[in-house]
């Protein structure tokens, strides 16, 4: 049985490898000069006073696509929350405060505010410099969990009211949709970036609705990552099942 499976894998893998290599040889040369979509995206971004073209593609030219992507994120987090909930045969055992080595505690607590501010900075400057809601949200959420490293789980739970983050997550998704609908009410298309003045190039308020959509995504990603980590931490640290081992139920 196992040998048959390895044979199948070898045959399929070789075939796929041959096809992939053939496809690679047919692709445009690496580092080539012709990028028609890229050139047009850059042009459109500059016309709307957005310095970071990637933010322009994500939140202006392909804003509708980002809405779908946010819904995937939201649905995945929802699925995790449902799958990792505390069931009836499990009970919570709060872990006793752990002894943390002093250097670890000191550096974790020193780095925490720096990392948190970095995350917020990266969100805020999404349309100007490399970064944006996706990156900054993850940085801010993981920064919060340095508290688990530096202090203990109890301290983290006290500064992290989970309900607030879950609400933030949902509110951010709806505010993205509301911003899209505002375009519709103003007489243009859904999520069209014609609502606000484009502002001065290379300033925080440039780019019309792009900074707002960027902030909504930042809030959503930060909330989503925090909720995800919280539920996995709960499972790993706190929740225990009454029947420790019961294979083949």
């Amino acid at each position, binding site marked *: 049985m196992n040998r048959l499976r390895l044979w199948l894998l070898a045959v399929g893998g070789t075939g796929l490898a041959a096809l992939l290599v053939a496809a690679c040889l047919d692709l445009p040369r690496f*580092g080539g000069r012709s990028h028609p979509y*890229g050139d047009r995206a850059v042009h459109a971004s500059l016309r709307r006073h957005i310095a970071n073209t990637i933010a322009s593609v994500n939140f202006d030219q392909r804003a509708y696509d980002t809405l779908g992507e946010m819904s995937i994120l939201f649905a*995945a987090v929802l699925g995790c929350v449902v799958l990792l909930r505390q069931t009836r045969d499990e009970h919570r055992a709060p872990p006793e405060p752990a002894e943390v080595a002093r250097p670890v505690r000191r550096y974790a607590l020193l780095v925490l505010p720096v990392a948190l501010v970095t995350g917020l900075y990266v969100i805020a400057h999404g349309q100007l410099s490399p970064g944006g809601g996706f990156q900054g949200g993850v940085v801010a959420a993981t920064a919060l969990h340095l508290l688990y490293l530096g202090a203990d789980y109890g301290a983290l739970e006290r500064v992290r009211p989970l309900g607030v983050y879950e609400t933030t997550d949902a509110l951010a998704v709806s505010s993205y949709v509301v911003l899209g609908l505002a375009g519709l009410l103003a007489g243009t298309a859904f999520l069209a970036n014609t609502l606000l003045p484009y502002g001065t190039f*290379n300033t925080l308020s440039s780019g019309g609705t792009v900074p707002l959509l960027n902030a909504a995504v930042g809030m959503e990603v930060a909330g989503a990552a925090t909720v995800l980590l919280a539920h996995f931490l709960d499972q790993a640290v706190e929740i225990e099942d009454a029947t420790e081992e019961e294979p083949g139920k």
Partner: protein
Amino acid sequence: MSHAMDVLPYLVAAYVFLTGCYGLATSRHLIHAVGCLAVCQSATYILLLAVGYRAGGTAPVFSDIEPGSRPVVDPVVQALTLTDIVVGATVTALLLALVLQIAKRHGTVDPDELRELRG
């Protein structure tokens, strides 16, 4: 050298993808399989960015360079990759949650043992 350079990044992407598939198929631990899937996902990032690269180009961010003064790499594929990474992470999280549920229900994380259980 320069001729090999024309396709090398694409070949590396294909290699990483196939390696991840191999690990996925031969894995004896579901969490290890999820890690292999993450490797497969990273192959798509390499492929996308390799397609958009332009020799001598710089990043498509105009806060510190004059627009039009230098060639820039393709921003469209970068935006695609960016969303790809975040979605990939949440998919990994969802799969890990499913693995934890399987471990709870069946008491094992070995895919082969799971097959025997079902029969």
